């Protein structure tokens, strides 16, 4: 209870204490509190009655929300006379945004006691209910770059805030009243010319409720004020802008010069003043600030002359002219001036300086004749030169003509008595006028009289033809050249006609280039009293040569040839002549390239020829124009499908052939490439197919023959060593036939009855002739087999196929074997019968063929052969006509049975078909001889190897005598083959 009482007392004390003066008297409440506002400055001006210096507590509220936004104690003193205290407060938020209220109270000196608060003083904002429209503040404010500004958006009645944007950036609003929201933008960047917009967007009105523009920029920063005088009276002041203020239009910078407004032309910083004042102050001002710049100088030091006027050339000569002009202001007449004259012609300009008081006339010297000049002039103060004035307008003039310069002449001889007089065209600066013609004079030093030829000015040469003098020498011919322009003729230039020195390419005469030119040097010549001439031209130019030359003074023995006309890959002939009274004398001659290139054309006429196993290549060098460099040699390549194989590198360019040796047969491609210092050319390719050459062919033939011979010798030797076996195999001993009956006395006719296919012809004795003898009977194969098996000892069991007959001689020495059956081998029978498998078995062959009588017809199954047999003996090959013929011969005397040549071919029944006379009958018996060579009609050894049939040679080989008489044609073959049996039959 007591504590509560103390607390109340303390509060009462506190409340009462402010009202007490320092001396204990109570403090009075501030009276007559007034409130004013400065909307542009966003400031509140508060006033109240106060007696002396004192302290006051001040509180400021946002009225609607009664939000304290300021509460501080300030010390103020009243005006000495008025007794009113003033206090200003600047608001960050525009005062239009909402209503503000303020109240004040006094505070004692010791600040312990205060008075009571004054009544609230309120200033209304624009958000009062009677202002229903949407608004935004501040409007059109101009602020410094980087500053902060608070904006407020007062929504219209019923509107709801959506967002506030600064430019495009959405801000965070703060509500300060029912309809008012504020946002603050810090560090504002410079705005554009129309300012930066702050937009207030509401929900329920088509978005844009209101907005404000703010201009952010800089204060003026102009500098460099300079005032000049052109007319020596007035002044023109200029300066530079400095940093752009970013403020334009109504917020742009305003200028005053010495306190007087000046409005510079658009895009410039310049103001004029009628009279020179010596001291100048320029003030630049914009909403953000003011800047003053000054200049101070006497007029004489700031003279900037105007451009000279009425510039003209009153006098024109060939090499000089006068230039005159006038001044706009009379004050210039006595003013010391220095002037520059700019003289330009053909792109070249020179500047001439002149000076003098009121200068207006100068002499232009050292001009080119007949040259067009452009001239202009400007001036400055001679004393206290400030700067050059403006250039005058340029005028042009042309000087007069003059004598042309002496042309540079040279003579090039194409032969002993002809050449060209050449000269370099005179430059316009050298012709000193319009060149009209050239005059070429030709005369002799020893004779009087000259020939003169006029050449059009467009030409730079004239043909020269010498006429031999009495002594036949043309060295003393003198040529003179003059150039004529429209008014003048030049001094003549003279030259004695030089001798003709043909251009011979000498090894070692090469000259190398350096940096696009040739450095030529030569030995000094004592005769070169007039210096030297270095001449060069395209070596391959032929008759259409473009010759260039350079004259070198005496005492100089080197020169550099450097011209834009020199081309890479072109060979130049460079000659040095010494000039003397006797005329030019050739001192040296070289050849060179500015830059060597690879040949443009491959070698020509590339040919390849074969010599045995070698290929010889030959070619021709490319034309000089195409070489484009000194050919250092050639590379020979073997061109494969995908690569080139270097075969040879020929470094001697004079060698233009090459032989590739030891090549096998086949097709080759060879590529020859010439190379220069720059590389190889594209190459020329030739293809050649190597054929077998004659020696090789002969060699191969000899090898083949030798191999064949060796083989034959080997076979022969082998056969010789194995002759027993061979003989046994191929020519076995044929046992003598042994006849069982009385064959010697009987004269029965051998009756051959070829059986049909696979039948066996059995030769039997004609039973009619001798019924007691066994006759030839036809046997079946079974029978044949039986008989063969029965024959036993008579058949060579080792060679049954070859020896299937019995070479029996039926006669007195009949071995009397098994019934006297003789079998013909299959091949033999096939030849005779026409059947491949016909075996003929001879049985009972008569021993005395010469006495054989024509056989009588015997019944037979095979009609043809039988008929043949009946006609003339054995004729198995006989065809129908032959058979008929044979039938016709049946009435002729009986002849021997003979197989013509023994060459009976089953497939060719007519081959070897004898004529009626020749095969007057198969008469093997005629040739037969006894197996023993001792007997007169024995077996002829020579017939053994008859190719007719190995198996039946004894039947087929004709008698030698008959052979000679009947078949001489076949004797040779018989002879060639007869050595084999002879060889075989000989004993070792």
């Amino acid at each position, binding site marked *: 209870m007591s504590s509560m009482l103390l607390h109340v007392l303390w509060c009462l004390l506190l409340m009462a204490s402010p009202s007490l003066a320092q001396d204990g008297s109570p403090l009075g409440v501030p009276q007559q509190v007034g409130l004013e506002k400065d909307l542009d400055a966003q400031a509140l001006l508060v006033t109240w009655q106060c007696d002396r210096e004192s302290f006051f507590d001040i509180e400021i509220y946002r009225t609607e929300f009664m939000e304290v936004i300021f509460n501080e104690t300030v010390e103020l003193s009243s005006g000495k006379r008025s007794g009113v205290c003033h206090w200003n407060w600047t608001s960050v938020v525009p005062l239009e945004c909402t209503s503000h209220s303020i109240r004040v109270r006094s505070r004692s000196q010791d600040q312990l006691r205060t008075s009571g608060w004054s009544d609230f003083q309120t200033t209304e904002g624009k958000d009062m209910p009677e202002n229903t429209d949407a608004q935004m503040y501040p*409007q059109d404010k101009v602020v410094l770059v980087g500053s902060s500004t608070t904006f407020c958006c007062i929504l219209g009645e019923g509107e709801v805030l959506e967002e506030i944007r600064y430019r495009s950036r959405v801000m965070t609003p703060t509500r300060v009243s029912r309809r008012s929201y504020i946002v603050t933008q810090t560090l504002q960047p410079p705005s554009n010319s129309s300012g930066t917009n702050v937009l207030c967007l509401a929900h329920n009105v088509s978005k844009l409720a209101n907005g404000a523009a703010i201009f952010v920029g800089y204060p003026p920063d102009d500098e460099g004020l300079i005032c000049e005088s052109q007319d020596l009276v007035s002044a023109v002041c200029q300066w530079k802008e400095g940093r752009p203020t970013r403020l*334009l239009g109504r917020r742009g910078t305003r200028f005053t010069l010495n306190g007087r407004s000046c409005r510079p032309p658009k895009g410039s910083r310049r103001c004029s003043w009628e009279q020179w004042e010596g001291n100048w102050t320029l003030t630049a001002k914009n909403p953000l600030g003011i800047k003053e710049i000054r200049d101070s100088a006497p007029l004489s030091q700031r003279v900037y002359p105007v451009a000279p006027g009425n510039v003209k050339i009153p006098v024109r000569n060939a090499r000089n002219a006068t230039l005159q002009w006038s001044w706009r202001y009379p004050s210039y007449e006595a003013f010391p001036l220095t002037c520059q004259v700019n003289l330009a012609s053909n792109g070249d300009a020179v500047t001439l300086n002149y000076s003098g008081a009121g200068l207006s006339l100068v002499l232009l010297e050292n001009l080119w004749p007949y040259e067009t000049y452009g001239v202009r002039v400007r001036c400055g103060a001679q004393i206290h030169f400030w700067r050059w004035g403006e250039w005058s307008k340029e005028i042009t003039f042309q000087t007069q003509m003059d004598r042309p310069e002496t042309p540079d002449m040279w003579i090039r001889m194409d032969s002993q008595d002809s050449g060209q007089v050449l000269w370099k065209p005179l430059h316009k600066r050298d012709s000193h006028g319009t060149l009209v013609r050239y005059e070429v004079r030709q005369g002799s030093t020893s004779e009087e009289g000259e020939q003169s030829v006029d050449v059009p000015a467009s030409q730079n040469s004239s043909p020269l033809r010498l006429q031999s003098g009495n002594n036949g020498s043309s060295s003393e011919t003198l040529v003179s050249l003059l150039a004529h322009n429209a008014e003048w003729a030049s001094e003549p230039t003279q030259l004695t006609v030089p001798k003709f020195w043909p251009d011979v390419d000498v090894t070692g005469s090469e000259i190398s280039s350096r940096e696009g030119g040739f450095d030529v040097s030569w030995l000094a010549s004592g005769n070169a009293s007039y210096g030297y001439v270095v001449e060069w031209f395209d070596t391959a130019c032929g008759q259409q040569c473009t010759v260039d030359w350079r004259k070198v003074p005496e005492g100089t023995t080197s020169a550099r040839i450097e011209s834009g006309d020199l081309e890479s890959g072109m060979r130049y002939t460079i000659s040095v002549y010494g000039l003397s009274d006797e005329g030019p004398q050739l001192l040296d001659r070289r050849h060179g390239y500015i830059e060597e290139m690879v040949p443009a054309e491959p070698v020509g006429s590339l040919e390849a020829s074969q010599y045995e196993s070698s290929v010889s290549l030959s070619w021709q060098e490319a034309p000089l124009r195409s070489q484009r460099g000194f050919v250092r040699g050639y590379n020979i390549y073997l061109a494969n499908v995908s690569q080139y194989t270097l075969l040879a590198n020929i470094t001697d360019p004079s060698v233009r052939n090459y032989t590739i040796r030891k090549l096998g047969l086949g097709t080759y491609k060879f590529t020859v490439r010439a190379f220069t210092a720059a590389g190889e050319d594209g190459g020329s390719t030739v293809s050649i197919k190597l054929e077998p050459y004659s020696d090789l062919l002969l060699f191969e033939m000899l090898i083949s023959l030798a191999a064949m011979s060796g083989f034959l010798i080997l076979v022969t030797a082998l056969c010789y060593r194995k002759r027993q076996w061979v003989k046994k195999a191929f020519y076995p001993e044929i046992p003598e036939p042994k006849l069982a009956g009385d064959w010697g006395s009987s004269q029965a006719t051998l009756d051959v009855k070829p059986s049909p296919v696979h039948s066996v012809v059995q030769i039997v004795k004609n039973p009619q002739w001798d019924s007691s003898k066994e006759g030839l009977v036809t046997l079946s194969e079974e029978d044949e087999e039986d008989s063969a098996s029965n024959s036993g000892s008579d058949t060579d069991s080792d060679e049954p196929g070859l020896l299937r007959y019995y070479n029996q001689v039926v006669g007195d020495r009949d071995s009397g074997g098994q019934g006297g059956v003789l079998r013909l081998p299959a091949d033999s029978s096939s030849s005779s019968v026409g059947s491949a498998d016909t075996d003929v078995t001879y049985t009972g062959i008569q021993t005395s063929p010469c006495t054989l009588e024509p056989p009588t017809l015997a019944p037979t199954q095979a009609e043809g052969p039988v008929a043949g047999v009946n006609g003339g003996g054995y004729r198995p090959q006989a065809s129908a006509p032959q058979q008929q013929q044979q039938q016709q011969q049946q009435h002729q005397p009986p002849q021997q049975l003979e197989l013509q040549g023994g060459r009976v071919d089953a497939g060719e029944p007519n081959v070897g078909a004898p004529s009626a006379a020749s095969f007057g009958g198969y008469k093997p018996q005629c040739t037969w001889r006894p197996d023993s060579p001792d007997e007169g009609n024995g077996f002829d050894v020579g017939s053994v190897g008859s190719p007719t049939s190995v198996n039946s040679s004894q039947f087929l080989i004709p008698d030698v005598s008959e052979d000679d008489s009947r078949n001489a044609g076949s004797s040779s073959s018989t002879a060639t083959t007869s050595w084999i049996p002879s060889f075989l039959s000989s004993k070792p």
Partner: protein
Amino acid sequence: MAGKGENGKGAYRGKSVQLARLLNAESVRLLDLYKQRESFPQTAISGERLVSVPCPTPHLPMGEKVLLVHTALGQCQGLLDRAIVLEDTEMGLTGDKDCKEYLGQRKIVKERLGHLLQSTRGLLVDGVGTTAAVAGQARAEEPDGGLFALKVWIYRIIQDVVYWTNMASETLPMAPMQAVTQPRKMAKIRRKGKRTGSTEVMDIL
């Protein structure tokens, strides 16, 4: 001859239509540039149109539609000219290098609008009634607020140019067939209006 005249009229109309379409595209481009420069929202700003000419209704004769379009374009031209002057004076746009494209486009629209106005005048039967039509004044006065209000005003002017050039491109294609007879009718209406003191045209204007 009639056919030739109709063809000539048609060709003339065709050029007017092409010009209107071209100008519409150019003014749309100008509006885009303006919105971009001022960071204005893409949605249109609400409020009354500054051009005090009602939109042509479908039941109106074609000649009257053309007259309305011509009148509106005339007001657009006046407003645009004034906007250009204010814009240059208040904001000093001509000295801003960053505004070259906008200024160029503004110049194009200004000149083409004059050409279209001339062209549509040719479709108004020997220019009868054009004086009265052009004499119609824009409804809105110049804003007396801050620069932002001026910017919104200019924005609306460009919006009106876009609107009425679009209207012209839609209306003018149908002009020739009507125009042959429409001038007399319009003249009658006008004369009748003078007698009666109220005509459709006068009501419209």
